[in-house]
């Protein structure tokens, strides 16, 4: 199949999904009222509730939801063949993805801007709030692990990448200083910092820089002719150790320094690098428009290292089809800034459909950039999804003249920045979560540095012990389970309002069964398939600990989700109490 057809399928999905299906639901069931005051207008406190123009909110929502999920997920999932991956991206978004994002905003708007914790307390049960908090902490830990492996092991261990990332971070700090302290014009700041970033990425590709990092990483050619780094402990090589520690250091500063000093200005500079990279890749793709070669539409039902197509494919492609992360951002952020109810579909649904398109681009870097399925596997396949994407993007950009080596480093820096942007914010969130949960009993947990270090130590443990594909599937399952719980909450809310809830109920049922199935499969695989093989592994202790971690985390997530679903079912069976009629 030609890549242009995949792009057209994406465009057609947006056309029919947004302009027909979503609009019908919006007009006939939700029935937004443009004249009704939203919480942003009602409260307008300048702190949490501030109305914003819908286009501004669209950019804000898209920036908040787009991360590594829609990029790495499709690249891993094509191991089942391109057809199941593409189908889930488009069908998942069409029936479930936009529904979750849109309804998460509407429920927040119609319930005075209450967050998911407060809504679950009120609509489901009082204990559901605590269960949700436990679930969220494990979910955040899995995000750190899944992104951290790709950054620390895959991207930073390329000697041409670290300096580029470090320079972009320093340039970001400069952008913050210029904006907040020196009060410079934002356009001047943008031009200077973006140009310096490109120069930095170029410098990192120079031979002396690569030789320097190769020396630090201990790269040497072994007897088979492969360039390898010496193993330090377990399966952690010198390169991986330094890469993961560099990642941890960046996340530490991002988590403890004020947002305006580190996170925000670096995010600002990263935005331009990412956007220009995507535009460059799309232009190259349109010029080249290659076919998929012999990339099979379907390979096998059970992929080694991942599992069966159902339920694992549906949790492998997370954010490209549906993501629980979006419901957290939508309900606690976007819903409190919506100027009019009629903007909700445009902001929530529109940005999700755009993210679907983003996932299609990533899908194409795996399927068309290599000319064949073997080419994809030789590039690293699913386990090195970040490398596949950066090299694929470089192949696209080469079509309008960018050298492949520079394009690959650019793509790697692009991905690293996207991952780090989310990671140090997730660490802040983990620190806040541990402070809230344990701060009363252990006052030291309220210390910023202690909470951050603990979050980073558990992340390192996950990265060093558990293989990437296992962490990714667990992350996807937790993410999709969060989404199904959001759909459950929305279904309850719609039922309480006397509205048709079939369009959220069946997506919830499908996602809930699929994600519980995926987690139970991972637990079964860890305890009954992998653990018995531990004695045959090179690192018995590491392998055993990895399987135990995966198995226990999977079971904890299953138990928390089942408890929530049980409470929700009891709430669902409650009759709708109509308000008493008052006679004048």
């Amino acid at each position, binding site marked *: 199949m030609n890549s242009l057809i995949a792009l057209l399928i994406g465009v057609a999905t947006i056309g029919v999904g947004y302009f027909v299906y979503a609009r019908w639901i919006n007009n006939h069931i939700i029935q937004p009222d443009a004249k009704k005051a939203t919480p942003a207008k009602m*409260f*307008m*406190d*300048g*702190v*949490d509730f*501030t109305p*914003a*123009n819908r*286009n*501004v*909110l*669209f*950019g*804000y*929502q*898209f*920036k*908040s939801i787009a991360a590594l999920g829609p990029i790495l997920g499709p690249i891993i999932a094509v191991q089942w063949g391109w057809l199941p991956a593409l189908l889930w991206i488009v069908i998942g978004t069409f029936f479930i993805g936009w529904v979750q994002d849109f309804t998460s905003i509407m429920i927040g708007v119609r319930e005075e801007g209450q*967050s*998911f*914790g*407060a809504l679950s307390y009120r609509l489901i049960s009082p204990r559901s*709030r605590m269960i*949700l*908090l436990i679930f*969220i902490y494990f979910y955040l830990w899995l995000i750190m692990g899944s992104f951290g492996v790709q950054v620390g092991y895959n991207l930073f261990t390329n000697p041409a990448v670290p300096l580029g990332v470090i320079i972009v971070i320093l340039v970001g700090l400069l952008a913050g200083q210029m*904006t907040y302290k020196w009060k410079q014009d*934002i356009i001047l700041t943008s031009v200077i910092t973006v140009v310096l970033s490109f120069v930095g990425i170029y410098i990192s590709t120079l031979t002396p820089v690569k030789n320097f990092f190769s020396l630090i990483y201990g790269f040497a050619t072994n007897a088979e002719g492969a360039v390898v780094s010496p193993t330090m402990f377990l399966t952690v090589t010198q390169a991986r150790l330094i890469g993961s520690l560099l990642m941890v250091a960046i996340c530490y500063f991002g988590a403890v320094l004020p*947002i*305006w000093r580190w996170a*925000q200005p670096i*995010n*600002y500079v990263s*935005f*331009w690098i990412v*956007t220009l990279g995507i535009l460059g890749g799309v232009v190259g793709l349109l010029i080249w428009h290659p076919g998929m070669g012999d990339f099979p539409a379907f390979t096998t039902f059970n992929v080694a290292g991942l599992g069966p197509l159902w339920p694992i494919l549906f949790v492998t492609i997370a954010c490209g089809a549906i993501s629980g992360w979006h419901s*957290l*951002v939508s*309900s*606690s*952020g976007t819903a*409190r800034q919506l100027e009019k109810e009629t903007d909700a579909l445009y902001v929530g649904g529109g940005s999700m459909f755009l993210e679907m398109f983003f996932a299609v681009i990533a899908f194409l870097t795996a399927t068309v950039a290599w000319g064949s399925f073997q080419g994809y596997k030789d590039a690293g396949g699913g386990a090195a999804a970040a490398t596949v994407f950066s090299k694929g993007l470089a192949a696209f950009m080469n079509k309008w003249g960018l050298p492949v080596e520079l394009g690959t480093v650019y793509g790697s820096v692009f991905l690293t920045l996207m991952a780090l942007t989310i990671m140090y*914010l*997730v660490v*802040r*969130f983990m620190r*806040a*979560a541990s402070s*809230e949960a344990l701060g009363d009993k252990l006052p030291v947990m309220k210390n910023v540095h202690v909470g951050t270090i603990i979050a980073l130590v558990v992340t390192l443990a996950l990265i060093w012990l558990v293989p990437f594909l296992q962490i990714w599937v667990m992350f996807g399952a937790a993410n999709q389970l969060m989404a199904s719980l959001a759909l459950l909450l929305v279904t309850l809310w719609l039922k309480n309002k006397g509205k048709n809830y079939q369009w959220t109920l069946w997506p919830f049922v499908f996602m809930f069964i699929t994600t519980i199935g995926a987690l139970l499969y991972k637990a079964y695989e860890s305890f009954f398939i992998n653990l018995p093989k531990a004695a045959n592994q090179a690192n018995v202790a590491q392998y055993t600990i990895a399987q135990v971690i995966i198995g226990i985390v999977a079971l904890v997530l299953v138990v928390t989700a089942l408890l929530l679903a049980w409470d929700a079912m009891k709430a669902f069976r409650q009759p709708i109490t109509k308000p008493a009629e008052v006679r004048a």
Partner: protein
Amino acid sequence: MQALQSIFQRLIKLVRTAAITVGQMIYGATIYEMVRDLNKERASIEHLFILIVFGDFLGIPILPPYYTLRLLPYIAPNITGWKRTLLRERDLTDLCDQEIT
């Protein structure tokens, strides 16, 4: 000729609207977050000032001095919103907005 001019004018209007829309989206994805955080910081400092001066509205035993009463007419319109912001129950999912975005 007039039809052509009308089509051309509509095209220019369309391009202008598209440029404004894209500009607003880029603003939303980049600088808007900074503006929002600056507004939050300003509002927090303002709330802190009101808390120190008018904390007795929230039950904090601050005896209203002469200047507090002089400022009261200017603060009165903001009191309800301020009380709501400070006393609003927050949990971890509220931090998604503060800590993540």
